[in-house]
């Protein structure tokens, strides 16, 4: 077992004994309802995220079951569309985004060396909005008219045909927006204002950087989404004409506003994943991250470009030629900074001394499979060819590659990586690797054939298809069921760490031999409030190279 040798590593940092000034958690359910503690809220976020991943996953299984064979076997087309719509909304807003907020909650205060997020009560509010929002959203499935079925993109006029579910859809989106904004403000302020003295911006861990930029994207775009859906609401109930030609509006206007949010949103999903991967690869390559500064600049460039490419989702709406050319060129440009990131990861591995514990396996799969998804994204960016790809399974394959073996794998990698720090025990490495290989194989089986189905002409958002697409769909459905079932290996593994720890191996403070950073200087599990006083870093002058800021931080033994 690979982590054995990590145990040899000394943990000479005594810490925590003076940290229980009655700041311990309350008991029972009220602890969770009232908590302002970043670790509690991180845990809540991760549990919510996990639940939503499962619900969204079950919905995707309904989709894949219906698509198993041509012909309509199980569900009505309308219900199928509800599943597609809710699958996407639940996965994105309920699964992936809260997962990264959960990781940020847990790790950012530890990484930058402070006691908690900057606005702990707001943090609690941001979390507790979400269970309510998703109850509202999922409750629509039981209403007359069923759930929303117009796609997660909510294009009018179709979405205006939604039944009683409509206002709930809109308000649920508003609530999710409020939650994201509060979460983002909190993370941004923590990073900007709560760093331990001596940790300048270019010395903080890359995960904090990617999150800072993500927070910026969230704060800039979620209100725009809120505005867009508000216009839908007034168009439906108050006679406004934003999206009605007869009144001088334009249905396509909604698409512009939506994608002004929607495209940065996809980078909201991937930037924190970049941060996680940039943390894990150096640890297991036992070599500092290559090109820390250029990583930061690349992330910032991606964020900047993400605001001027939105209409690549709309090449077929009939934009003026100049618009199409502009958005095509701008979109292609994103490949440059993203490429820099990929190359830097490879350069980090180069001449390292790698071991392949579960987090590393997921991180490596991320680099491979995200890049494949990035390539198909670049193909989509070529407007004249996108006319053939658009709204086919080629697009579905593209974004699942960047999202599932991309962002979701990064979440899973991050949880494996930090779980010992959170629970104080090591997960079972063999099971972890079994989980990895099953996931990696099945996820490719699920989404690779979809490229072919799409190229051959299968459009997306359909419950049934022409018979020549059968083989691809059979493979995809087998993969989907296999992937879902494989997750139970992980669930068992994690459940043992969380609830059934007897006999589990204790984790040392520095769980991974090659890991650097403040979070590894405190015991595992980390104390309830990690740093009640700012850790003191060396005077700035003595921290030499920016990339090993962490090294500097813990080499010089932070003053508790």
């Amino acid at each position, binding site marked *: 077992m690979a982590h054995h040798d990590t145990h040899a590593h000394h943990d000479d940092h005594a810490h925590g004994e003076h940290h229980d000034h009655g700041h311990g958690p*309350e008991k029972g359910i009220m602890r969770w309802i009232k908590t302002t503690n970043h670790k509690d809220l991180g845990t809540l976020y991760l549990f919510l995220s996990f639940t939503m991943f499962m619900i969204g996953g079950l919905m995707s299984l309904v989709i894949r079951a219906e698509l198993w064979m041509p012909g309509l076997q199980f569900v009505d087309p309308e219900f199928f569309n509800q599943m597609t719509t809710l699958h996407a909304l639940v996965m994105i807003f309920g699964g992936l985004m809260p997962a990264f907020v959960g990781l940020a909650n847990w790790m950012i205060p530890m990484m930058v060396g402070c006691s908690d997020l900057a606005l702990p009560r707001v943090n609690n509010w941001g979390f*507790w909005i979400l269970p309510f929002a998703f109850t*509202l959203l999922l409750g629509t499935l039981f209403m007359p008219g069923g759930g929303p079925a117009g796609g997660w993109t909510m294009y009018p006029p179709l979405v205006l045909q939604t039944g009683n579910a409509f206002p709930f859809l809109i308000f649920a989106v508003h609530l999710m927006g409020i939650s994201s904004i509060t979460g983002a403000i909190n993370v941004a302020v923590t990073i900007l204002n709560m760093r331990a003295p001596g940790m300048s911006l270019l010395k903080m861990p890359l995960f904090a950087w990617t999150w800072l930029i993500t927070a910026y994207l969230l704060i800039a775009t979620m209100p725009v989404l809120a505005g867009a859906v508000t216009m839908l609401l007034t168009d439906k109930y108050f*006679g406004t*004409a934003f999206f009605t030609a007869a009144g001088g*509006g334009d249905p396509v206007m909604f698409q512009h506003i939506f994608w002004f949010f929607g495209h940065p949103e996809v980078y909201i999903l991937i930037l924190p994943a970049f941060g996680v991967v940039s943390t894990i690869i150096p640890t297991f390559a036992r070599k500092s991250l290559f090109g820390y500064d250029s990583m930061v600049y690349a992330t910032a460039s991606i964020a900047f470009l993400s605001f001027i490419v939105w209409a690549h989702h709309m090449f077929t709406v009939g934009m003026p030629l100049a618009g199409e050319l502009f958005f095509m060129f701008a979109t292609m440009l994103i490949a440059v900074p993203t490429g820099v990131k990929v190359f830097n990861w490879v350069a980090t591995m180069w001449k390292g001394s790698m071991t392949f514990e579960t987090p590393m396996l997921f991180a490596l799969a991320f680099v491979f499979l995200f890049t494949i998804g990035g390539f198909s994204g670049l193909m989509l960016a070529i407007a004249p060819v996108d006319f053939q790809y658009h709204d086919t399974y080629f697009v579905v394959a593209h974004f699942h590659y960047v999202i599932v073996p991309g962002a979701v794998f990064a979440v899973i990698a991050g949880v494996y990586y930090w779980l010992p720090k959170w629970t104080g025990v090591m997960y079972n490495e063999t099971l972890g690797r079994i989980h990895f290989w099953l996931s990696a194989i099945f996820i490719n089986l699920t989404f690779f054939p979809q490229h072919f189905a799409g190229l051959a002409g299968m459009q997306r958002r359909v419950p049934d298809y022409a018979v020549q697409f059968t083989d691809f769909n059979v493979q995809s459905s087998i993969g989907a069921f296999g992937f879902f079932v494989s997750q139970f290996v992980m669930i068992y593994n994690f459940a043992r760490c969380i609830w059934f720890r007897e006999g589990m191996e204790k984790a040392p403070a520095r769980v991974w031999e090659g890991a650097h950073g403040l979070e590894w200087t405190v015991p595992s599990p980390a104390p309830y409030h990690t740093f009640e006083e700012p850790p003191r870093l060396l005077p700035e002058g003595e921290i030499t190279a920016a990339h090993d800021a962490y090294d500097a931080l813990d080499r010089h033994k932070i003053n508790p």
Partner: protein
Amino acid sequence: MAHAATDNSRYFVPQPSPWPFILTAGLVAIIYGVAGYLENKHWGPVPIYAGAAIAIYIVFRWLRGVALESEGGAYNAQVDRTYRWGMAWFIFSEVMFFGAFFGALFYARQLSVPWLSGEGAELSTNQLLWPGFEKDWPTNGPGAMGGSFETIPAWGVPFINTVILLTSGVTITMAHHALKAAERLKCILWMFATVALGVCFLYLQASEYIEAYQHLNLKLSSGIYGSTFFMLTGFHGMHVTLGTIMLAVITARLMVGHFKPESHFGFEGVAWYWHFVDVVWVGLFVFVYIL
């Protein structure tokens, strides 16, 4: 930043709090009520009122708690900076919210209305679907939604409102100077003036809406002009309302002796917000009324 740690050796960590959870429950009750109302489900107004009462009460309790913590000296310089950053980001998010509606306005004026009239490559749109429609602003579209209407001239009430808001920006700055100079009475008087200007603005805005609905046939449903006009000015009006209430609260706090000349972020936060509302109005005045 090293000095940050020297003057504050401990972080401020608030106690667990039930307020956020209850606040959310209140909001959800409002949503339930409003959604039912929109979909003609007759649940009655009870959830709306109950939810609103809960939400208002909680917001009050929560902010009061923060104010008392602050007055009790629980906050250090770092917390102060946290609130500054937090407020700045929040205002940025509000700017982007208005951005969506301004975006809709520009899109309609620069793109969709000209297209409907056959500009650019859209000749067939005009010929096949909307023959005879000509580009114009204000417009309620080729379907003349809501019937013909008149607009509110920029140089009447809207101009007066502009002057009012700009003046209020000055008065609140005067109040701020007074506060910093420890001249509390002066500060309170300037605040009274600011609140009064806010109320005047709202009064004029409301009478303008009544005029629009009763005499000009300008309604939310008057095509794209009515939509953008009322959504932009309406959301702005809601922000002015909120801002005025906050100004009043701040004034009351000044009167009971809150805020110190050297530390008064509660005051400054509200002032920032008020300036933001002010700036949005200038944008509205230019793009909605004048142009």
